[in-house]
């Protein structure tokens, strides 16, 4: 969405990025790729546990002759396969949550920020009411209400997220709404729809994107926290959160169960965070323009 104003090529711009951007981007891409290819590399099946192979350290050969490169967990699942499958779940949960929360937030934030008045009043008050609940509590309540399922986790998390996005969008919509270039479109006779789509929205997107990247990371962590409290995705679906949460009892004995997905989670979240920072830095001059 950032226009390539300086006419530089994509490759040129990439080369101009600092090292940490490359590392972060590389990590994220690697993980996404691994997530996509996961089923080919190390197929995972929740219903293929092998109690005799449980708690084996990384690099052990299993009873069926396969190699557990990253060890096995407390039911004898191959950690590698589980982490690969878990990434799909965790990323899906995070992305869908952010997408759902983001779109709802975008829509409501735009309405509130642009039109102000009673629309803003209602949306902001509802947001306030919701923010009066610490978000983890709301997620706990909802996850508790709805029962464990991936969809419910997404709902619980998305419900707690929309306000954040709505506030970000409302803030920038409010800031842009009275900018002179918007006024100049109004003077021209532009309709609300045109102003919203052509003027307000583009200015809201960069901060929204920054917020979204940050939230993708935080959502993955929140999903793990819900798993810890037993309110995460159900056992039949591997997720990083639940693997880490299940593995917590083995931190002292079979550290690899929690450590591998934990490290993966931290890596991805940090990488996304770094990218978010860069995006923020990159989008600041844009909003200044």
């Amino acid at each position: 969405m950032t226009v390539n104003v300086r006419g530089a090529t994509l490759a040129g711009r990439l080369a101009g990025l600092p090292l940490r951007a490359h590392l972060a981007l590389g990590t994220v891409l690697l993980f996404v790729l691994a997530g996509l290819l996961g089923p080919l590399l190390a197929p995972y099946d929740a219903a293929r546990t092998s109690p005799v192979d449980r708690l084996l350290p990384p690099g052990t050969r299993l009873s069926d002759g396969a190699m557990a490169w990253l060890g096995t967990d407390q039911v004898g699942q191959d950690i590698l396969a589980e982490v690969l499958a878990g990434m799909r779940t965790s990323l899906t949960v995070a992305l869908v949550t952010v997408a759902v929360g983001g779109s709802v937030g975008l829509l409501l934030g735009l309405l509130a920020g642009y039109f102000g008045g009673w629309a803003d009043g209602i949306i902001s008050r509802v947001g306030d009411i919701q923010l009066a609940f610490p978000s983890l509590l709301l997620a706990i309540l909802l996850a508790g209400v709805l029962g464990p399922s991936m969809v419910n986790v997404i709902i619980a998390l998305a419900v707690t997220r929309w306000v954040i996005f709505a506030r970000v969008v409302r803030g920038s919509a409010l800031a842009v709404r009275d900018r002179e270039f918007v006024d100049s479109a109004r003077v021209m006779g532009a309709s609300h729809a045109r102003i919203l789509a052509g003027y307000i929205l583009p200015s809201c997107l960069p901060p929204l994107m920054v917020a979204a990247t940050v939230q993708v990371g935080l959502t993955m962590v929140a999903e793990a926290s819900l798993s810890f409290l037993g309110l995460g995705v159900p056992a039949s679906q591997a997720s990083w959160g639940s693997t880490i949460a299940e593995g917590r009892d083995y931190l002292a004995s079979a550290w690899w169960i929690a450590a591998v997905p934990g490290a993966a989670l931290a890596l991805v979240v940090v990488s996304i965070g770094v990218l978010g920072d860069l995006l923020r830095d990159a989008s600041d001059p844009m909003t200044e323009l």
Partner: protein
Amino acid sequence: MAEAEPLLELADLVTSYRLRPGIGRPGGVVRAVAGVSLTVRAGETVGLVGESGCGKSTIARTIVGLVRPSGGRVLFDGRDLGALPAKELRRLRRDIQLVFQDPYASLNPRMTVAALIKEAWRIHPGLVPRERWDDEVRALLERVGLRAEHAGRYPHQFSGGQRQRISIARALAVRPRLIVCDEAVSALDVSVRAQILNLLQELQRDLGVSYLFISHDLGVVRHLCDRVAVMYLGKIVETGSKEDIYRSPAHPYTQALLSAAPSLDDWRADEHGERDEIVLTGDVPSPLDPPTGCRFRTRCWRAQDLCRDEEPALVERDTGHPVACHFPGALPPPTTTATGSGRLMKE
């Protein structure tokens, strides 16, 4: 020029802002424009001067429809903008365009120059047939002194003066009859400012547009305008032809303003130590709570009891042009020399 039809007429215009109450701040209503009548005739340039915060921009914003008046009427071409059906109003809006002070902020940073100009035609389909858009853009850019190849660039790739040219081109795209320039040259460097002023004059000559030219720079207004209105705290205190105002200012505020305005020749006066200068003490009162009677009386050296009790109307007194002062005239104000220590007036 003087005999032309009034193109824009403000009749007792009032525009207020509602202030939301906040911490340690009561709510209230700011009457930023408190009953202003003003006309701009076709092909004429009217200057509006006054201190910061006196309501100049508010008038501009009201005229172009960015804020709603809370009283009075805005007549364009004899038609009351407030009474027009929405559709007609939209068409009429085209005829009044606004050029803002800040050429950095008034152009959408995400649109190319061409897109910025074409946006006008997208909003008003039928104004220019689509196949002529590119040609028209080129013509407009050349008209304002830019080159056609600039069309594909983004605003931030231009200097301030060039951006202001783009703003003007964009305003011209809808073929307006009146352009309101709100401090349109104030942000520009001296050398570039002259370019834009020349361009404005040239456009008026060629296209016959009228300007309402808002500025606090008296020199520029004098250079550009046919008639001048002086504003103070939401009201017009004096209006007349350029000569009237600059040669024989009758309102004490106008006199103070003129004497305070720096000019290139100031050094001469200074050299001989005899420059007369009216120094106003006291701050501009808050528009939330304007003084009773004459609004200027708190800073006026001629103020008398009458000024407190009665608000002077903007009428032609024996000055030859309308002035809102009970005691108008060219009588020399108590002045101070540059070296003097003068406190001039009672508070």
